[in-house]
Structures are given as structure tokens and as C-alpha cells.
């Protein structure tokens, strides 16, 4: 906050100077190469970000398939028809519930593990062992969603999957995990933290390594044991990092990854698996209800905007650092 206050007035000053009439031409001329660099960049953002944003007008019109880019602006106006249709449908609550619960469980289950892992791995003395263990836990993070979902799907297969083979060995009958709605959330959340815990621990490991050795020594002189060191030194030292990351995770609460749900779900588990984004995809791309899908997507974007906005303000307040 303080840093911001200090910076802002300065920025305004320079902007005012540049903004004075007459000096405009000068500064444009001086910055001509910078403007030249910005030109293709802005062209990209205009075409692929801002043009689609203004295209959201289609959520209030009757966009017809095949009307192309023109149809984004020049279709018949229908007002809030698509929104009221969505708000009255049974999908609204199901989608909100599924989207929220998948994020919520991922947070509850997935957030503490990297911290625990970071604390554990930094207890090891040998640097080499530490590195090897860390690298082996990063690997899943870099595997594509398609392969991860392919592995889940095949491991859980009732006939040839390793999980069910192991279950059979201990006398449990095969479970058809992928087509039972009660399993979807567990599969999604567990595989998600499997994939990311190692990678997410990097930042906590770095924070723990950053604690001054003097502090450790002081605690040892006082006769503290390892548990006390963790509880009274390590955890308090990485608290700011934990809070910042928690807020960042909260910011992405309602933007559940489309790809993974899409690749894992099937009609049998829509009840617990279908999220806003997959619904938008089915309605729009698969069933050609473009305007309706765009309206649902706009609804989702507005929710996301609100959440990110407040998460960012919260993080500014708590830690002097904006997420961006």
C-alpha cells in the first residue's frame, strides 16, 4: 500500500508533463520505435481479446449459425432472453454447485500438501537427495492433461485397470469408477493434487531455504527440538508466502479447468461433473446455440471478474503485493 502511494504521484507527474498540448507530437516522435514495437502486440490483443469481448453483444441477440463475424454485431436484439432462460433452467444451480465444489475441495485437499511436503523435504540434510526427491515430484506437473486423464481412465478401468486388479486381489469387486457420479469429485481432486503438489512446493521450499541460519542456531542453543523449530520458526517465516498463495488460489475459484473435466466426464456423471465451461462448450460448439452459450459464458466471466478483483484487493491489503 505504502509503496503504491509513493509511486503513484510520481507517475501522474510524468504523465501530466507528457500530456501537455504540443508536447504530444514530440513524445510520439521520440517514442516512435516503442510504438512500432507495440503495434503488432496491440493488434493481437485487439483481434483475439478485445474483439471477442465486444462480440459478447451476441449474448443479447439471436446469432445465427453461418452469419460469421458480422453476426456478432448485427443479429436481431432479444434482450435478456438467454439469461432468463439460463436462470430458470435446472442447470444454473447444478453448474454453480459443481464448479464451486470442485474448486473448494481442490483447495482444502490440495493446498496443505505442498506446504507439508516442503517442510518435510527441507528436513533432509543431503542436497543431492533433496534435489532428486523434488525433481521426481515435479514430473507429473509437466505431463499434458490428455495423458494424465488417459492414465486415470485406464488405471481405473473395471476390466484391465491396475486399481481394480489390486482391489480384486484383496477380494473387492471391480468398481466402475468413471461412470459413478459419487467418484468424480474424488478422482478430479486427488489427481489434481497428485499432479501439482511437487511443483507448488517449490515456492515454499525456497521460502524455507531463505530463513537465516542464525535463527536456527539461536533456537538450537535454546534447546528446541525439531518439532518446536518447525512450529515456532519455519511456519511463521513462510506465513506471508502461504497467505499470498492462498489468495491467488481463491482468485481462480470459479474458473475450473475446462480441459480436465471435459476429458474425464461422460453423460453418466454429469450430475457431479458438469461445470459452467463444459456446459458452454456443449451448448455452443456442439449444439450450435451460440447466443445462449455466450450468455452463460458472460455470466461466468462476470463472476470470475468479481472474484479476481476482490482477491487482488485483498492481496494488496495483506501483503503490499498485487497479484498483478
Amino acid at each position, binding site marked *: 500500500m505504502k509503496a503504491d502511494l509513493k509511486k503513484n504521484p510520481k507517475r501522474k507527474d510524468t504523465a501530466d508533463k507528457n500530456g501537455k498540448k504540443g508536447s504530444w507530437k514530440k513524445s510520439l516522435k521520440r517514442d516512435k520505435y516503442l510504438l512500432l514495437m507495440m503495434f503488432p502486440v496491440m493488434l493481437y490483443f485487439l483481434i483475439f481479446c478485445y*474483439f471477442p469481448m465486444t462480440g459478447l453483444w451476441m449474448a443479447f441477440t439471436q446469432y445465427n449459425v453461418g452469419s460469421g463475424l458480422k453476426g456478432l454485431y448485427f443479429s436481431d436484439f432479444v434482450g435478456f432472453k438467454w439469461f432468463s432462460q439460463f436462470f430458470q433452467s435446472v442447470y444454473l444451480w447444478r453448474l454453480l454447485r459443481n464448479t464451486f465444489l470442485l474448486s473448494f475441495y481442490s483447495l482444502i485437499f490440495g493446498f496443505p500438501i505442498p506446504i507439508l511436503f516442503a517442510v518435510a523435504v527441507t528436513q533432509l540434510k543431503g542436497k543431492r537427495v533433496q534435489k532428486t526427491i523434488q525433481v521426481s515430484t515435479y514430473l507429473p506437473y509437466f505431463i499434458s492433461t490428455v*495423458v494424465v*486423464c488417459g492414465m486415470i481412465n485406464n488405471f481405473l478401468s473395471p476390466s484391465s485397470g491396475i486399481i481394480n486388479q489390486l482391489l480384486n486381489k484383496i477380494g473387492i469387486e471391480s468398481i466402475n469408477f468413471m461412470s459413478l457420479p459419487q467418484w468424480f469429485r474424488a478422482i478430479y481432486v486427488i489427481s489434481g493434487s*497428485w499432479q501439482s503438489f511437487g511443483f507448488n512446493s517449490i515456492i515454499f521450499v525456497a521460502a524455507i531455504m531463505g530463513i537465516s541460519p542464525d535463527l536456527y542456531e539461536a533456537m538450537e542453543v535454546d534447546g528446541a527440538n525439531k518439532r518446536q523449530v518447525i512450529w515456532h520458526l519455519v511456519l511463521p517465516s513462510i506465513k506471508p508466502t502461504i497467505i499470498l498463495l492462498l489468495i491467488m488460489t481463491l482468485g481462480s475459484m470459479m474458473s475450473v479447468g475446462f480441459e480436465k473435466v471435459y476429458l474425464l466426464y461422460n453423460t453418466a456423471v454429469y450430475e457431479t461433473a458438469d461445470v459452467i465451461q463444459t456446459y458452454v462448450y456443449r451448448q455452443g460448439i456442439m449444439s450450435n446455440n451460440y447466443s445462449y452459450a455466450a450468455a452463460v459464458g458472460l455470466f461466468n466471466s462476470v463472476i470470475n*471478474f468479481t472474484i479476481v478483483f476482490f482477491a487482488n484487493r485483498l492481496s494488496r491489503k495483506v501483503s503490499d503485493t*498485487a497479484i498483478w
Partner: protein
Amino acid sequence: MFKKLRNKTIGDIIFDLIVYVFLFVAVVVCVYPFLYVVSVSVSSGEAVNKGLVTLLPVDLNFDAMKTVLNYKQLWVSYGNTIFYTITGTILNVFFTCLAAYPLSRKRFCLRRQFNFLLAFTMYFSGGLIPIYIVVTGLGLYNSRLSVILPVLISAYNVMICRSAFESISEELFEEAALEGANDIYIMGRIAVPLIKPTLAVLTLYYAVARYNDFFNAMLYISDKKLEPLQLFLRRILLEASTEIMQTTSIEMAAASQSTIQVRYVCIVVSVIPIMLVVPLVQKYLVEGTMLGAVKG
């Protein structure tokens, strides 16, 4: 006094034990699935079908491997992925620098306006449907550009790159400007070489994202000649396509390869590049996550 010390050590031993068990489980959980997949893909089909493979290969046998490696579409899609990854990453990094450099120059007259336009795209997006209509409306459906262009610049990465440029001492720029160097020269010859470590991290992230990208290809590519590896993998792994099995002659099929084996071979083939690259660049990974966290 002696008793106290003893108690402590017992407590510490239990503590160490818990730590070791926890770490052991973490490593096993991460490594075992891949080991299992490799083992299945080089075992005999018979052993796989009987469920004998649980950890190491049983009856070492490369038939399934051969079947998959002889399947032409695998190499077509692999080639496409290599093209998309290399071209895409180069363009990503180039345009990211091009965006970040002007935004890092304090004297730049439109700096605040452009910064706002950039940041706003991180808060709000037109969403799937309008973007889909724009991309297809531009005639990019079933063209290689449809995979490369829609994700050309990531605003988040631009901000990382921008703070790297900002951390360079201002005097360097002033000196160069006094000597008459223009911004393009300063950026290419002075600024970019100074932020190489940051660019290495960005290159890594962009490249992995390109290699793993599936979403854009699924939306815009239906022509098998243009499909990337991930689309091919989805057909084999998740849609239970038996296209590879159908190419094998009857005698090969009689050698009782299981479908699941073919799938696991595909996983192995596609994951190998990642497995080779990630351990090599691990020191950059640590830097990379720090970049994301310490920005103002």
C-alpha cells in the same frame, strides 16, 4: 538431565521417521504410475492380459512397441507437435519481449494506457464462444495458424518479462541513448541479453504449454494431417479408438496384444521428451516460480 536428552532423541527419531515415510510415499506416488506404464508397454501381451505386471516388466517383449511405432499417424501428429512447439514458442517469446520492453520504459508516452489494456485481459475475457467465432470467422479453421495465433501472448508472462526489463539499471539505457542508439537496437543488443535467465524460464513455460496444448487443436483442427500429438492421444487413450490395432496383420493380433498395452506405449512415446527436459532445467523452475511471486 540425561533423561531429558534421551526423551528428546526418541521424539526426534519418531519425527524423522514420519518425515521419511511421508517423503517415501510422495516419491512412490509420483514415480510408480510412470514406471508401471513403461513396464506394461515392454511386457508380453499375455502377461498384461493376465494382470501379472504390477511393478517390473514380465517376459520382456517389444511387439506392442513395434506396432505403435510403425503406425504412421503417430509420426504425422508428432511432427505437427514439433512444428507447433518450435514455431509457437519462438513467436511467443519474441512477441512477449516486444510487448514487455516498451511497457518497461518509464518515459514511454502511452505506457499507462497500454498497461491497462494488457492487465484488463487478465481480469476479463470474451469467453469461449466469441473467441471461437472470431477465429473461425477469420478463416483460420483447419489451418496451422489457428493453433499458434490465439495464444500468441500471455499477459501474465509479459508482466514477468516487464519487471525483468525494469530491473536493469536506467543508466545503461541513458548511456546507449546518448550514443545515439535507438530503442530497437537497445532492446536487441543490451536489454534482451541482460534478462536471459528470465527468458529461459518463459521459454520453458511456453514450450511445455505448446507441447501439451490440446484445447485449441480440439476446437479448430479436424484435419488429421494437421492434428498435434495430444489430439491423437485423446483418440487412442480416451475414445478407445482401435485404429492402431486395425493396422496390424492377423498374426500379430494373434500374438495377443492387449489394447491397453498399445495405449501405454503411446503414453511412453509422448512423455519421453518431457521426462528428458524437466530434470535438466530444474534450476530454472525454481527461479521461475519466484518470478511469478515477487511482482509489484
